């Protein structure tokens, strides 16, 4: 699953550490999410979308395998 976390974060001028603290996850998790190495739980996905003030489908792009 692709996501726009890095793009949205950079648009808003937020550091990975700041986003991690706001979402209560580690900085490494943010890095892994941005690189697409890790897919978040549904709860974290909602938390991220809420943080950016967007719908979940505007942040995460579902791709059929």
């Amino acid at each position, binding site marked *: 699953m692709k996501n726009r976390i890095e793009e949205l974060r950079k648009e808003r001028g937020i550091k990975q550490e700041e986003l991690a*603290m706001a979402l209560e996850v*580690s900085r*490494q*998790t943010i890095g892994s999410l941005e690189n697409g190495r*890790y897919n*978040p*739980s549904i709860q974290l996905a909602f938390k991220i979308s809420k943080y950016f003030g967007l719908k979940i489908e505007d942040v995460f792009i579902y791709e059929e395998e």
Partner: protein
Amino acid sequence: MDKGVRTAYILLIIGLMLVIVSAISFYFFSSERFAYTVVSYAIFGGGFGLLGDGIGRLNAARLEKKDPERMKIINIEKNDERNIAINEKAGSKSFTFSQYLFTAVIVVLAILRVELRTLLILLSTDLIILVYSLCIRLKLYKEM
């Protein structure tokens, strides 16, 4: 008193008592039977484990008061969902590996014609682990 601090003190006290009991049993009974020595060592190990846990918990409670910001970061690292997922995956893989290892050890010991009692102890240990795994699986099937 905070619940965490109370637990830490309880663990410290129990640990300390176990260490003392093990020292006394080692001093007075170890010469009587070898099994008593083994039991003394086991109690000593358990006691020191609890002592360590208690000290760790006390330190964490102290840090929480002294530096709440740092404690928050530690808690985030601890509860981070990716870290939890990594730990669970590592645990699951090592469990599978331990099953192969157990089988290999049992076969090697059987080839070496080790005493049957030793083999049975190993086999029953493996069986207990497998039954425990099955119980957890059934519990999770119901819960999830």
